[in-house]
């Protein structure tokens, strides 16, 4: 198979590996490191596709995505990690081992359901499509099973990375403006959440979502 195809596979593999590692690690700091790697992989995918399908504007998208996903957002999360108590997911709702096994099922599911799409157009990009789907599912899994608000932000970012990857792989890149729009309100969302967690920590001394059930009354 062609060098491009192999590079794309490689990038997709790294993308997926990062998602798994984020699920694997409890330490939010380590998670952010993997998050930046995933952002880089995402940018790489865009670049490869750009080279492959001769869409020069994809380079610009790649640059923007790389900057935002690999540098800015992880940095924001990292800066949100201040209090020692905050920086590891001590007790997720289901233990890490089990959630990893759940991830196995999710990935297999992603591959299974994506097959029709893949068969639709047998390009390398399409064959890597399930990876994006799998990352989306893993992101959702993190959103569901993790307690700390920060871990949830991480899951949220994972989810969005997955969506972007799908966009790239399926439609050879969403229109540049859309991408920027998405990315920026994502940025906004993260900032808001950060401020919120900071305030929550200031007020309640922790951002454990279970402890916040009492807030609604």
């Amino acid at each position, binding site marked *: 198979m062609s060098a491009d195809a192999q590079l794309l596979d490689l990038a997709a*593999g790294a993308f997926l590996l990062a998602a798994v590692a984020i699920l694997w690690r409890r330490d939010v700091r380590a998670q952010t490191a993997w998050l930046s790697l995933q952002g880089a992989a995402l940018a790489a995918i865009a670049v490869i596709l750009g080279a492959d399908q001769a869409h020069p504007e994809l380079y610009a998208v790649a640059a923007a995505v790389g900057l935002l996903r690999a540098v800015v957002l992880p940095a924001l999360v990292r800066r949100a990690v201040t209090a020692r108590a905050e920086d590891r997911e001590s007790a997720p709702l289901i233990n890490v081992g089990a959630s990893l*096994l759940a991830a196995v099922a999710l990935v297999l599911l992603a591959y299974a359901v994506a097959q029709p799409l893949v068969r639709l157009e047998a390009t390398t990009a399409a*064959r890597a499509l399930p990876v994006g789907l799998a990352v989306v599912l893993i992101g959702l899994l993190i959103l569901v099973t993790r307690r700390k608000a920060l871990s949830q932000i991480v899951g949220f970012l994972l989810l969005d990375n997955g969506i972007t990857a799908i966009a790239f792989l399926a439609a050879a890149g969403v229109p540049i403006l859309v991408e920027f729009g998405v990315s920026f309100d994502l940025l906004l969302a993260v900032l808001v959440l950060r401020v919120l967690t900071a305030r929550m920590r200031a007020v309640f001394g922790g951002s454990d979502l279970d402890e916040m059930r009492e807030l609604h009354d």
Partner: protein
Amino acid sequence: MIAALLVSLIQVLIVLLGAPLLVGAMRQLRAVMEGRVGGGVLQPWRDLLKLLRKAPQRPEGTGAAFRLAPLLGVACCAVAAAAIPLVSTRTGLGAAADLIAAVALLTLSTAALALAGLDTATAFGGMGASREMTITALAEPAILTAVFALAAKVGSTNLPAIVATTLGHGARLASPATLLAAVALGVVVLAETGRLPVDNPATHLELTMVHEAVVLEYSGPDLALIELGAAMRLTVLLGLWSSLFAPWGVATSAGPTRLLLALAVFAGKTLALGALIAAAEVFMAKLRLFRVPELLAGSFLLAVLAVTASFFLA
């Protein structure tokens, strides 16, 4: 045929003689990073020679299992070393050099040692055995699934075939399947050889011991065999890993010069991997025993991903 047997013999000998040196080198690197001078690369050999000459003991009430385990440990590693294409793909076992068989042999040596630990009827022996078997049992799925990923591409679990095919298509190594499998097997190798973060080979605290607790009762020549076996196990597993994921330099043809080169490359690769582990251990702390399953579950996940990737992507 003679040449093949010779290759196997050479492999066994280099593992047998080189394993303690590998351990020595790893300890030395660690010492240097800790600002010490270190005992030197030859220290493990000095220890072994001394232990071999010490008076053999028979702890009360221990039986055949206790006496057999050290021998079996070394023997299994030796056979595995003869089978795995560490230096050349033309090993003496030929078609019978099977990946699953090699892995099972190493498991056999672990089980024998665990039985020996239980046989002593001491609390620590039993504790170590229990932990060792727990880890082995949970490592098995990751190993075999990774094997599955590698063998499915080649269509055989025959080691020389796998290595030869990989050498044929070097590009395959860069496929996600292979990379994921490599990470998965790497984690398992750490667990199976009792390195950090699964087990601390240098611990003196019985309550944190896994492998050390099993062998607390051994002394003299038996202990020498145990240490030699552990070192050989490390060497063989590192060699297996490098033969599967970095097979460059493994000779596919006979010929003395070719073999010598392959020998040198093998030594280089194994030392490099060992150095990597030793350096990483400086930064790592031991995991709690009940965090180890997480680690192994993760490696199993990676192995499954490798299988799916090998089917869907490549």
